[in-house]
Protein backbone atom coordinates (compact mmCIF):
# COMPACT_ATOMS: atom_id res chain seq x y z
CA UNK A 1 0.00 0.00 0.00
CA UNK A 2 1.33 3.38 -0.89
CA UNK A 3 1.76 5.33 2.31
CA UNK A 4 2.24 8.60 0.43
CA UNK A 5 -1.10 8.24 -1.21
CA UNK A 6 -2.66 11.55 -1.90
CA UNK A 7 -5.83 12.06 0.04
CA UNK A 8 -8.11 14.95 0.77
CA UNK A 9 -6.76 17.19 3.50
CA UNK A 10 -8.80 17.08 6.64
CA UNK A 11 -10.22 20.25 8.08
CA UNK A 12 -8.48 21.29 11.27
CA UNK A 13 -11.52 21.83 13.49
CA UNK A 14 -9.39 23.30 16.25
CA UNK A 15 -8.54 26.16 13.95
CA UNK A 16 -12.20 26.51 12.98
CA UNK A 17 -13.05 26.96 16.67
CA UNK A 18 -10.12 29.24 17.35
CA UNK A 19 -10.92 31.20 14.20
CA UNK A 20 -14.48 31.71 15.39
CA UNK A 21 -13.17 32.91 18.75
CA UNK A 22 -10.77 35.25 16.92
CA UNK A 23 -13.64 36.75 14.95
CA UNK A 24 -15.67 37.27 18.10
CA UNK A 25 -12.83 38.68 20.20
CA UNK A 26 -10.94 40.67 17.58
CA UNK A 27 -13.83 41.82 15.44
CA UNK A 28 -17.08 41.76 17.39
CA UNK A 29 -15.69 43.14 20.64
CA UNK A 30 -13.84 46.09 19.00
CA UNK A 31 -16.90 46.69 16.81
CA UNK A 32 -19.06 46.89 19.87
CA UNK A 33 -16.66 49.26 21.64
CA UNK A 34 -15.40 51.35 18.75
CA UNK A 35 -18.07 51.45 16.09
CA UNK A 36 -19.65 54.57 17.60
CA UNK A 37 -16.34 56.37 17.03
CA UNK A 38 -15.82 54.93 13.56
CA UNK A 39 -19.08 56.37 12.24
CA UNK A 40 -18.06 59.81 11.18
CA UNK A 41 -19.76 61.41 8.23
CA UNK A 42 -20.43 58.17 6.38
CA UNK A 43 -23.55 56.09 6.04
CA UNK A 44 -23.89 53.66 8.91
CA UNK A 45 -24.42 50.66 6.64
CA UNK A 46 -21.39 51.55 4.51
CA UNK A 47 -19.18 51.76 7.59
CA UNK A 48 -20.58 48.52 8.98
CA UNK A 49 -20.01 46.74 5.67
CA UNK A 50 -16.48 48.03 5.33
CA UNK A 51 -15.72 47.19 8.92
CA UNK A 52 -17.04 43.64 8.48
CA UNK A 53 -15.11 43.03 5.25
CA UNK A 54 -11.90 44.46 6.77
CA UNK A 55 -12.36 42.32 9.89
CA UNK A 56 -12.99 39.12 7.93
CA UNK A 57 -9.98 39.79 5.70
CA UNK A 58 -7.59 40.67 8.50
CA UNK A 59 -8.54 37.82 10.82
CA UNK A 60 -8.52 35.35 7.92
CA UNK A 61 -5.11 36.62 6.86
CA UNK A 62 -3.77 36.31 10.38
CA UNK A 63 -4.98 32.72 10.74
CA UNK A 64 -3.56 31.79 7.34
CA UNK A 65 -0.24 33.37 8.21
CA UNK A 66 0.19 32.09 11.74
CA UNK A 67 -1.15 28.57 11.51
CA UNK A 68 1.03 25.58 10.78
CA UNK A 69 0.41 24.07 7.38
CA UNK A 70 -2.35 25.17 5.09
CA UNK A 71 -5.40 26.66 6.69
CA UNK A 72 -7.62 28.31 4.16
CA UNK A 73 -10.94 26.59 4.64
CA UNK A 74 -10.83 26.85 8.42
CA UNK A 75 -11.08 30.65 8.75
CA UNK A 76 -13.62 30.65 5.94
CA UNK A 77 -15.86 28.23 7.88
CA UNK A 78 -15.30 30.29 11.04
CA UNK A 79 -16.26 33.44 9.15
CA UNK A 80 -19.45 31.81 7.93
CA UNK A 81 -20.38 30.75 11.48
CA UNK A 82 -19.49 34.20 12.75
CA UNK A 83 -21.69 35.85 10.11
CA UNK A 84 -24.58 33.59 11.09
CA UNK A 85 -24.00 34.66 14.70
CA UNK A 86 -24.20 38.31 13.70
CA UNK A 87 -27.32 37.70 11.64
CA UNK A 88 -29.01 35.96 14.53
CA UNK A 89 -28.52 39.12 16.57
CA UNK A 90 -29.99 41.34 13.91
CA UNK A 91 -33.27 39.49 14.23
CA UNK A 92 -32.95 37.13 11.31
CA UNK A 93 -33.78 34.17 13.51
CA UNK A 94 -35.13 35.40 16.83
CA UNK A 95 -38.81 35.94 17.00
CA UNK A 96 -39.38 35.42 13.29
CA UNK A 97 -40.24 32.48 11.17
CA UNK A 98 -37.39 31.21 9.08
CA UNK A 99 -38.66 31.29 5.55
CA UNK A 100 -36.95 30.45 2.28
CA UNK A 101 -36.01 34.07 1.69
CA UNK A 102 -34.30 34.34 5.03
CA UNK A 103 -32.39 31.14 4.53
CA UNK A 104 -31.25 32.27 1.09
CA UNK A 105 -30.16 35.64 2.55
CA UNK A 106 -28.30 33.82 5.28
CA UNK A 107 -26.58 31.60 2.75
CA UNK A 108 -25.64 34.54 0.55
CA UNK A 109 -24.13 36.50 3.44
CA UNK A 110 -22.45 33.41 4.84
CA UNK A 111 -21.06 32.65 1.39
CA UNK A 112 -19.74 36.19 0.97
CA UNK A 113 -18.09 36.02 4.39
CA UNK A 114 -16.69 32.59 3.48
CA UNK A 115 -15.10 33.97 0.31
CA UNK A 116 -13.69 37.09 1.97
CA UNK A 117 -12.13 35.14 4.82
CA UNK A 118 -10.80 32.56 2.37
CA UNK A 119 -9.21 35.36 0.36
CA UNK A 120 -7.63 36.72 3.55
CA UNK A 121 -6.39 33.28 4.54
CA UNK A 122 -4.99 32.68 1.06
CA UNK A 123 -3.05 35.95 1.24
CA UNK A 124 -1.85 34.90 4.69
CA UNK A 125 -0.68 31.55 3.36
CA UNK A 126 1.17 33.30 0.52
CA UNK A 127 2.90 35.56 3.03
CA UNK A 128 3.77 32.55 5.16
CA UNK A 129 5.22 30.71 2.15
CA UNK A 130 7.29 33.74 1.20
CA UNK A 131 8.58 34.01 4.73
CA UNK A 132 9.55 30.32 4.78
CA UNK A 133 11.30 30.69 1.42
CA UNK A 134 13.29 33.64 2.69
CA UNK A 135 14.20 31.73 5.84
CA UNK A 136 15.41 28.74 3.82
CA UNK A 137 17.41 30.97 1.45
CA UNK A 138 19.20 32.66 4.29
Amino acid at each position, binding site marked *: MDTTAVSK*RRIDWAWVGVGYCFFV*VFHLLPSYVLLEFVRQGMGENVVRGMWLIAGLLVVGLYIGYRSRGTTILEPAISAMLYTITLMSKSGEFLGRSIGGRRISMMLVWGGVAFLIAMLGAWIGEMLQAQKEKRAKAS
Partner: protein
Amino acid sequence: MNPETEPVNDSAPRRASEFSPSFLRWLISLTCGTLVLFFVIDPLYRGRPFGEIGFSPYPWIVAGGQVISFGLQEFSGRPLEVPTATQRYSLLASLLVGLVVGPTLFFFGWRMNRIEKESGKKGSVFRASNIAFLLGVLVTFTIAVPAIPAAIAQRMVSHSLRNAQAVQRSRDAIINDLNWIRLFAEQHRALPQEGGGGGGTYIGFQIPSQLEANAEATYEIVNVFDSTVVMKASSKRYDAGVMVTIDGRFARRFPAGLRDWTYTGQFQ
Protein backbone atom coordinates in the same frame (compact mmCIF):
# COMPACT_ATOMS: atom_id res chain seq x y z
CA MET B 1 0.66 24.88 -1.42
CA ASN B 2 -2.27 22.79 -2.42
CA PRO B 3 -4.65 21.93 0.37
CA GLU B 4 -6.18 19.13 -1.65
CA THR B 5 -2.96 17.14 -2.12
CA GLU B 6 -1.11 17.22 1.20
CA PRO B 7 0.18 13.69 2.01
CA VAL B 8 -1.19 11.98 5.04
CA ASN B 9 1.23 10.02 7.15
CA ASP B 10 -0.67 7.97 9.70
CA SER B 11 2.48 6.63 11.33
CA ALA B 12 3.73 10.14 12.23
CA PRO B 13 3.38 11.08 15.89
CA ARG B 14 0.48 13.28 16.75
CA ARG B 15 1.39 16.95 16.35
CA ALA B 16 1.66 19.00 19.50
CA SER B 17 -1.17 21.47 19.84
CA GLU B 18 -0.43 24.90 18.44
CA PHE B 19 -2.27 26.51 21.30
CA SER B 20 -1.20 26.64 24.90
CA PRO B 21 -3.90 25.74 27.43
CA SER B 22 -3.81 29.20 29.03
CA PHE B 23 -4.19 30.86 25.63
CA LEU B 24 -7.21 28.70 24.85
CA ARG B 25 -8.69 29.39 28.30
CA TRP B 26 -8.39 33.11 27.84
CA LEU B 27 -9.64 33.03 24.28
CA ILE B 28 -12.70 30.98 25.20
CA SER B 29 -13.39 33.18 28.24
CA LEU B 30 -13.16 36.33 26.15
CA THR B 31 -15.35 34.81 23.45
CA CYS B 32 -18.00 33.76 25.95
CA GLY B 33 -17.84 37.18 27.64
CA THR B 34 -18.23 38.98 24.32
CA LEU B 35 -21.14 36.78 23.26
CA VAL B 36 -22.86 37.33 26.62
CA LEU B 37 -22.30 41.06 26.22
CA PHE B 38 -23.63 40.99 22.69
CA PHE B 39 -26.62 38.72 23.17
CA VAL B 40 -27.67 39.30 26.78
CA ILE B 41 -26.36 42.51 28.31
CA ASP B 42 -26.66 44.76 25.28
CA PRO B 43 -30.34 43.95 24.64
CA LEU B 44 -31.01 44.47 28.34
CA TYR B 45 -29.51 47.93 28.21
CA ARG B 46 -31.29 48.84 25.01
CA GLY B 47 -34.85 48.09 25.99
CA ARG B 48 -37.23 45.21 26.12
CA PRO B 49 -35.71 42.04 24.81
CA PHE B 50 -38.39 39.84 26.33
CA GLY B 51 -41.53 41.72 25.33
CA GLU B 52 -43.71 42.86 28.21
CA ILE B 53 -41.36 41.49 30.84
CA GLY B 54 -38.98 44.39 30.04
CA PHE B 55 -36.11 43.67 32.39
CA SER B 56 -34.20 46.87 32.94
CA PRO B 57 -30.87 47.21 34.73
CA TYR B 58 -31.95 50.68 35.86
CA PRO B 59 -35.58 50.26 37.00
CA TRP B 60 -35.65 53.74 38.51
CA ILE B 61 -35.34 55.17 34.99
CA VAL B 62 -38.34 53.08 33.93
CA ALA B 63 -40.21 54.38 36.99
CA GLY B 64 -39.32 57.96 36.03
CA GLY B 65 -40.58 57.33 32.52
CA GLN B 66 -43.80 55.92 33.98
CA VAL B 67 -44.32 59.05 36.10
CA ILE B 68 -43.82 61.26 33.03
CA SER B 69 -46.21 59.06 31.09
CA PHE B 70 -48.84 59.38 33.85
CA GLY B 71 -48.36 63.14 33.81
CA LEU B 72 -48.87 63.31 30.05
CA GLN B 73 -51.94 61.06 30.25
CA GLU B 74 -53.43 63.25 32.99
CA PHE B 75 -52.59 66.38 31.02
CA SER B 76 -54.26 65.09 27.87
CA GLY B 77 -57.32 63.84 29.77
CA ARG B 78 -56.79 60.19 28.93
CA PRO B 79 -57.37 57.47 31.51
CA LEU B 80 -54.21 56.29 33.22
CA GLU B 81 -52.68 53.12 31.83
CA VAL B 82 -51.82 51.27 34.99
CA PRO B 83 -48.78 48.98 34.61
CA THR B 84 -49.66 45.31 34.43
CA ALA B 85 -48.67 42.84 37.11
CA THR B 86 -46.02 41.39 34.78
CA GLN B 87 -44.42 44.79 34.35
CA ARG B 88 -44.44 45.41 38.08
CA TYR B 89 -42.94 42.04 38.90
CA SER B 90 -40.29 42.45 36.21
CA LEU B 91 -39.29 45.80 37.70
CA LEU B 92 -39.18 44.23 41.15
CA ALA B 93 -37.01 41.47 39.72
CA SER B 94 -34.74 44.08 38.15
CA LEU B 95 -34.36 45.81 41.51
CA LEU B 96 -33.61 42.53 43.27
CA VAL B 97 -31.07 41.45 40.65
CA GLY B 98 -29.31 44.81 40.54
CA LEU B 99 -29.27 45.73 44.20
CA VAL B 100 -29.48 42.41 46.06
CA VAL B 101 -28.36 39.45 43.97
CA GLY B 102 -25.44 41.25 42.28
CA PRO B 103 -23.74 42.55 45.44
CA THR B 104 -24.46 39.23 47.19
CA LEU B 105 -22.70 37.31 44.43
CA PHE B 106 -19.84 39.80 44.55
CA PHE B 107 -19.21 39.44 48.28
CA PHE B 108 -19.98 35.73 48.28
CA GLY B 109 -17.53 35.07 45.43
CA TRP B 110 -14.93 37.27 47.06
CA ARG B 111 -15.25 35.45 50.36
CA MET B 112 -15.08 32.03 48.68
CA ASN B 113 -11.99 33.09 46.76
CA ARG B 114 -10.32 34.25 49.97
CA ILE B 115 -11.11 30.98 51.71
CA GLU B 116 -9.78 28.95 48.76
CA LYS B 117 -6.62 31.05 48.65
CA GLU B 118 -6.03 30.61 52.39
CA SER B 119 -6.52 26.87 52.15
CA GLY B 120 -4.00 26.74 49.28
CA LYS B 121 -6.41 25.05 46.93
CA LYS B 122 -5.83 25.68 43.25
CA GLY B 123 -8.99 25.35 41.26
CA SER B 124 -10.02 25.93 37.70
CA VAL B 125 -10.48 29.44 36.37
CA PHE B 126 -14.09 28.48 35.69
CA ARG B 127 -14.84 27.44 39.27
CA ALA B 128 -18.10 28.57 40.85
CA SER B 129 -16.52 31.15 43.14
CA ASN B 130 -14.77 32.86 40.22
CA ILE B 131 -17.88 32.92 38.07
CA ALA B 132 -19.97 34.23 40.97
CA PHE B 133 -17.34 36.86 41.69
CA LEU B 134 -17.15 38.02 38.06
CA LEU B 135 -20.92 38.18 37.70
CA GLY B 136 -21.11 40.03 41.01
CA VAL B 137 -18.46 42.53 39.90
CA LEU B 138 -20.28 43.10 36.63
CA VAL B 139 -23.67 43.72 38.25
CA THR B 140 -22.35 45.58 41.30
CA PHE B 141 -20.18 48.04 39.40
CA THR B 142 -22.61 48.67 36.57
CA ILE B 143 -25.86 48.81 38.53
CA ALA B 144 -25.53 48.88 42.32
CA VAL B 145 -22.58 51.26 42.74
CA PRO B 146 -23.83 53.91 40.26
CA ALA B 147 -27.20 53.71 42.02
CA ILE B 148 -25.73 55.31 45.18
CA PRO B 149 -24.70 58.69 43.68
CA ALA B 150 -27.82 58.55 41.52
CA ALA B 151 -29.99 58.16 44.64
CA ILE B 152 -28.19 61.04 46.39
CA ALA B 153 -28.50 63.26 43.33
CA GLN B 154 -32.17 62.32 43.01
CA ARG B 155 -32.82 63.34 46.63
CA MET B 156 -31.01 66.64 46.12
CA VAL B 157 -32.86 67.43 42.90
CA SER B 158 -36.16 66.39 44.43
CA HIS B 159 -35.54 68.58 47.49
CA SER B 160 -34.53 71.49 45.31
CA LEU B 161 -37.64 71.10 43.13
CA ARG B 162 -39.94 70.87 46.15
CA ASN B 163 -38.35 73.96 47.65
CA ALA B 164 -38.69 75.88 44.39
CA GLN B 165 -42.35 74.85 44.14
CA ALA B 166 -43.01 75.92 47.74
CA VAL B 167 -41.41 79.32 47.13
CA GLN B 168 -43.51 79.71 43.98
CA ARG B 169 -46.68 78.77 45.88
CA SER B 170 -45.89 81.29 48.61
CA ARG B 171 -45.23 84.01 46.04
CA ASP B 172 -48.52 83.28 44.28
CA ALA B 173 -50.39 83.47 47.60
CA ILE B 174 -48.82 86.85 48.38
CA ILE B 175 -49.70 88.18 44.91
CA ASN B 176 -53.28 87.06 45.51
CA ASP B 177 -53.35 88.88 48.87
CA LEU B 178 -51.98 92.05 47.28
CA ASN B 179 -54.78 91.87 44.73
CA TRP B 180 -57.31 91.70 47.57
CA ILE B 181 -55.73 94.76 49.18
CA ARG B 182 -55.95 96.54 45.82
CA LEU B 183 -59.71 95.92 45.79
CA PHE B 184 -60.05 97.47 49.24
CA ALA B 185 -57.95 100.43 48.03
CA GLU B 186 -60.35 100.80 45.12
CA GLN B 187 -63.32 100.80 47.47
CA HIS B 188 -61.63 103.48 49.52
CA ARG B 189 -60.97 105.60 46.44
CA ALA B 190 -64.54 105.21 45.22
CA LEU B 191 -66.16 106.27 48.51
CA PRO B 192 -66.80 109.97 49.14
CA GLN B 193 -64.86 111.61 51.95
CA GLU B 194 -68.09 112.02 53.91
CA GLY B 195 -68.46 108.27 53.94
CA GLY B 196 -64.91 107.68 55.20
CA GLY B 197 -63.43 107.15 51.74
CA GLY B 198 -60.84 108.98 49.72
CA GLY B 199 -63.21 110.85 47.44
CA GLY B 200 -61.41 109.90 44.23
CA THR B 201 -57.95 109.57 45.83
CA TYR B 202 -56.16 106.95 47.86
CA ILE B 203 -55.31 109.43 50.62
CA GLY B 204 -56.15 107.97 53.99
CA PHE B 205 -56.17 104.34 52.79
CA GLN B 206 -55.06 101.78 55.30
CA ILE B 207 -54.81 98.05 54.90
CA PRO B 208 -57.74 96.33 56.62
CA SER B 209 -56.59 94.71 59.85
CA GLN B 210 -57.62 91.21 58.70
CA LEU B 211 -55.29 91.57 55.70
CA GLU B 212 -52.29 93.09 57.47
CA ALA B 213 -50.80 89.74 58.23
CA ASN B 214 -51.48 86.08 57.53
CA ALA B 215 -49.51 82.84 57.47
CA GLU B 216 -47.64 83.85 54.35
CA ALA B 217 -46.62 87.45 54.89
CA THR B 218 -47.12 90.84 56.52
CA TYR B 219 -48.37 93.68 54.36
CA GLU B 220 -47.73 97.39 54.79
CA ILE B 221 -48.18 100.60 52.88
CA VAL B 222 -44.95 102.40 52.05
CA ASN B 223 -46.39 105.51 50.41
CA VAL B 224 -49.85 106.83 49.60
CA PHE B 225 -50.40 109.47 46.91
CA ASP B 226 -53.54 110.78 45.26
CA SER B 227 -53.60 108.20 42.54
CA THR B 228 -50.99 105.64 43.56
CA VAL B 229 -50.24 103.48 46.55
CA VAL B 230 -46.93 101.69 47.09
CA MET B 231 -47.33 98.43 49.05
CA LYS B 232 -44.83 96.03 50.46
CA ALA B 233 -45.21 92.39 51.49
CA SER B 234 -42.60 90.65 53.61
CA SER B 235 -42.66 86.85 53.52
CA LYS B 236 -42.86 85.05 56.84
CA ARG B 237 -41.57 81.78 55.44
CA TYR B 238 -38.67 82.95 53.32
CA ASP B 239 -36.17 85.73 53.25
CA ALA B 240 -38.10 87.41 50.46
CA GLY B 241 -40.57 90.17 49.71
CA VAL B 242 -42.68 91.89 47.09
CA MET B 243 -43.20 95.58 46.35
CA VAL B 244 -45.96 96.79 44.06
CA THR B 245 -47.70 99.98 43.11
CA ILE B 246 -51.46 100.35 42.83
CA ASP B 247 -51.81 102.72 39.94
CA GLY B 248 -55.16 104.46 39.59
CA ARG B 249 -54.05 107.26 37.28
CA PHE B 250 -55.63 105.80 34.18
CA ALA B 251 -58.52 104.09 35.86
CA ARG B 252 -61.16 106.66 36.51
CA ARG B 253 -63.88 104.26 35.50
CA PHE B 254 -62.05 100.95 35.80
CA PRO B 255 -60.30 99.24 38.66
CA ALA B 256 -56.72 100.34 39.13
CA GLY B 257 -53.93 98.09 38.00
CA LEU B 258 -50.94 96.76 39.86
CA ARG B 259 -47.60 97.69 38.32
CA ASP B 260 -43.91 97.93 39.10
CA TRP B 261 -43.71 94.53 40.68
CA THR B 262 -40.41 94.12 42.49
CA TYR B 263 -39.41 90.79 43.97
CA THR B 264 -36.65 90.52 46.51
CA GLY B 265 -34.75 87.63 48.09
CA GLN B 266 -35.85 84.13 47.14
CA PHE B 267 -38.80 85.46 45.16
CA GLN B 268 -36.45 86.83 42.53
